[in-house]
C-alpha cells in the first residue's frame, strides 16, 4: 500500500512537471492524470473511467490569476488510487472527489503562500550579487521540489491513509468547518479576479466589467458566446476610438495655423 502510494505520487509529480516543462500546463487535468495513475498501478480501464467522470465534474474549474477554487488534479490521483487499490468501488471513489479536491487545494495554496513569503532574497541574488547562474539554479530547485510540493505530500497522505481515513476525516470534521472551508474556496476565487481587475482598472471603460457579469449571470450566456460578443464590441470600440483620435488631431491642425497666421500678419 505504501509502495503503491509512493509510486502514484511519483507519477503525479512526473506528469505535472512534464506538462509544465513542455509548456502544456492546462493539460494537467483528470482526463490525463487518472489514466496515467491507472497505467502505473496496472489498471488502465479504471483510470480511464474515473478520468472521464472527474473531467466532467471539474470541467468548469479555472485557475484565475494564480488562484483556484479547487484542485481537480489531486482528486484525480487520489480517487483513481482508491478505486483501484481499495474495495471502495469506482462510484464511491468519484463521490469523494470534491472534498478531496477542496481539502488538497487548501493545503497546497496556503503552503505555497508561505514558501514564497520567505523568498524576497531571490531578487537579491540578481540585483545585489549579480549571480544569474545561482538564480537559475534556485529556480530549478523550486520548479522540481518546492513549488507544488504541498499537493504531492497531501496526495501521498490521502493515499497512504486510505479510503477509511478520508472517510473518517470527512465524517469527523464538524459540519461547520466543512461549510466554512467550502464557502472560502469560492470566495477566494475573488482574489484572482480582483488582481486582474486592478490591472485593468480604468474608470472610462469599467462599465464593461458589469456588462460581462450580467451577460453570464442574468442572461445565462456561456463564456464562449460572451467571448465572441466581446471581440465584436472591442473591435467596434477600437475603430470608434481611432476615428475620435483622428478627429481630435484634425481639430488641432485646423486650430494651430490660425494662431500662427496672426504672428505672420505684420
Amino acid at each position, binding site marked *: 500500500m505504501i509502495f503503491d502510494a509512493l509510486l502514484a505520487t511519483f507519477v503525479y509529480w512526473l506528469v505535472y512537471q512534464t506538462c509544465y516543462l513542455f509548456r502544456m500546463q492546462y493539460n494537467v487535468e483528470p*482526463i490525463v492524470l487518472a489514466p496515467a495513475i491507472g497505467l502505473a498501478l496496472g489498471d488502465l480501464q479504471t483510470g480511464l473511467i474515473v478520468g*472521464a467522470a472527474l473531467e466532467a465534474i471539474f470541467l468548469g474549474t479555472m485557475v484565475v490569476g494564480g488562484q483556484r477554487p479547487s484542485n481537480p488534479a489531486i482528486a484525480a490521483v487520489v480517487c483513481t488510487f482508491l478505486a483501484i487499490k481499495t474495495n471502495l468501488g469506482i462510484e464511491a471513489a468519484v463521490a469523494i472527489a470534491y472534498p478531496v479536491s477542496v481539502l488538497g487545494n487548501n493545503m497546497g495554496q496556503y503552503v505555497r503562500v508561505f514558501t514564497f513569503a520567505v523568498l524576497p532574497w531571490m531578487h537579491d541574488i540578481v540585483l545585489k550579487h549579480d549571480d544569474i547562474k545561482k538564480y*537559475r539554479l534556485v529556480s530549478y530547485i523550486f520548479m522540481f521540489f518546492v513549488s507544488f510540493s504541498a499537493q504531492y505530500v497531501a496526495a501521498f497522505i490521502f493515499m497512504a491513509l486510505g479510503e477509511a481515513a478520508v472517510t473518517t476525516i470527512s465524517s469527523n470534521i464538524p459540519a461547520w468547518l466543512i461549510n466554512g*472551508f467550502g464557502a472560502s474556496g469560492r*470566495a477566494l476565487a475573488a482574489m484572482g479576479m480582483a488582481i486582474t481587475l486592478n490591472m485593468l482598472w*480604468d474608470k472610462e*471603460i469599467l462599465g*464593461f466589467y458589469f456588462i460581462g457579469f450580467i451577460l453570464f449571470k442574468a442572461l445565462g450566456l456561456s463564456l464562449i458566446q460572451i467571448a465572441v460578443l*466581446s471581440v465584436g464590441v472591442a473591435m467596434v470600440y477600437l475603430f470608434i476610438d481611432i476615428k475620435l483620435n483622428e478627429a481630435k488631431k484634425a481639430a488641432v491642425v485646423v486650430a494651430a495655423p490660425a494662431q500662427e497666421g496672426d504672428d505672420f500678419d505684420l
Partner: protein
Amino acid sequence: MIWKKFFPELTAEEDKNLTKLANREYMWSLLWENMTGQAKGLVFTLSEFIEEMYKDDPEEKHAAYERQFKYFNTNPNLGGFIVGLVYAMELKRSKDKESMPAELISDIRISLCGPFAGVGDALFQSVLKVVFAGLTMTMTANGNPLGPVLFFVLFGLVQRGTMDYLTYLGYSAGTSVIDKLFESGIMASATKAISVLGLLMTGAMTASVVGFGFNWVIPLGDASLNVQQTLDSIFPGLMALVLTFGISYLLKKNIKVTTIVWSVLGLCILMGFLGMV
C-alpha cells in the same frame, strides 16, 4: 524553426534566439507568488538574453533586471506576445538608449498583461479545454486509451503553438510595427480596446467562478428571513461583486495578499461556526 515561415524577414540568428526564448517560457507559473505574480519566471525567461545584450553595461543590466522584477501576471499562452515584444524592446534599448525609453518597456509590460490575462484565461480554460475534453471524453469513458492521448497531444500542441507563434509575432511587432503604432496613436486605442475585451471577460469570469451562498435563516417571530433569497431578489450574484470589489479595494490600499487570504478564510470558518453559510 517552423514559425519562420510566417515571418520571412527574420534572420537565422533571430529565429534561433526566438525559439530559445519561447522554450524558456515554462517557469512563470512555477515561480508564481503573490507579491509580483509571474515576474520571477519572466526574469528566468529573459535572463540569458539580458546578460548577453547588456554585457558591457552593468548599470543598464541592473536597471533591466529591476524593471523585469516588477509585478507581472498574465495568461502564459497569450503572454508569449508580451515576452517577444519586451525582448525586442530591450534589444533595441541595449543598442541605442535614446531610441527606447525605459518607461515605455515597463508601460507595455504592465498594460498588456491584464487584458491578456482576462482574455487568455477564459479562452484556454473555458473555451478550448471544454472543446478538446468534449471531443475525447466519450472515448475515454468507453475505456479507449486513445481519448486521453488525443486530449494531451491536441490541446498540448494548441497551447505550445499559441505561445511560440505569439512570441515570434510579439518580436516582429516590437522590431517593425511598434514605432509606427505609437506615432500614429493607434497603440493607445488598441490597448484600450483589448482592455474592453479583458473587462468583459473578467466580468463574465467573476460571475462564473466567484460565489458566496448564505445558508442563513433569521427567525422573525412567526415569519423568517432567508438571507440568500433576499439577496438574490435584489441582484443575483451580489456577493460575488461585493467580494471582488472589496478585495480590489484592499489591494489598492497595499494590504498584503496573504493577509487578505487568511482573513477571508478565518471569516468564512467563523461564519460556518455561527451557522451562517
